[in-house]
């Protein structure tokens, strides 16, 4: 299928790569279909691009790249909605929405409300974590040392089904 995007122009994507977003992103509830895109393979940043509104895209990053000891607890209800049969790291991908700012050192990632993706079923949901007290604005600059090496492993962390 073809989609028109503000950022990448007209792009052609395989329908199997479309992620159904349950409930949409908070504040963007009307948009339910997204696709994961990369612009530059050197960075761990990806784009979570809306299929239905080409002007809407979020910069996302694999949450565990940002915080290796991240332990998001997902409720039974959400596990059910995402049709996660047996929670295993190979099929479940956790992405954090990144807020890019003109000063790179002020860039933050939202660890409180990750996008949890069932890569096998291509279902996703923005989950608001109740436990863990994770910040909505987690500074990347203050935590670079931990994820420097991890960025290179990114390829392994994203299942083939999702890989841009």
């Amino acid at each position, binding site marked *: 299928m073809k989609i028109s995007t503000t950022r990448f122009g007209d792009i052609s994507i395989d329908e199997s790569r479309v992620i159904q977003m349950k409930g949409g992103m*908070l504040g963007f509830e009307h948009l339910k279909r997204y696709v994961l895109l990369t*612009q530059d393979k050197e960075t761990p940043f990806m784009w979570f691009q809306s299929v239905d509104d080409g002007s809407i895209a979020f*910069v996302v990053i694999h949450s565990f790249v940002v915080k290796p000891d991240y332990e998001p607890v997902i409720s039974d209800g959400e596990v059910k909605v995402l049709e996660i049969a047996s929670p295993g790291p190979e099929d479940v991908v956790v992405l954090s929405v990144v807020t890019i700012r*003109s000063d790179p050192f002020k860039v933050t990632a939202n660890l409180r409300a990750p996008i949890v993706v069932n890569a096998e079923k291509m279902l996703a949901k923005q989950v608001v974590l109740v436990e863990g007290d994770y910040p909505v604005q987690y500074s990347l600059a203050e935590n670079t040392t931990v994820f420097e090496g991890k960025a290179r492993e990114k390829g392994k962390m994203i299942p083939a089904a999702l890989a841009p």
Partner: protein
Amino acid sequence: MLILTRKLGETIRIGNEIEVTILDIKGRQIRVGINAPSDITVHREEVYQIIREQNILAAEAGSDDSIGGGLPHVWKMLKNPKEEVE
């Protein structure tokens, strides 16, 4: 807004599948139990607003081409902050 008075332990039913029960009252704090289908998400209003605002901010910042196009730059700066000489 529909306003109902309920006693401790009483329930309000919304539609066929949502139940809201008053579990406990202590001074100005009220504990509310909610039973809803798993596809209905329940948020504390203030948390919902914070996440929503952050999403909107993220989407706006991402739509700024001068910044969005500079993701490799952002990443480079974060990886090697000491190289910033400009």
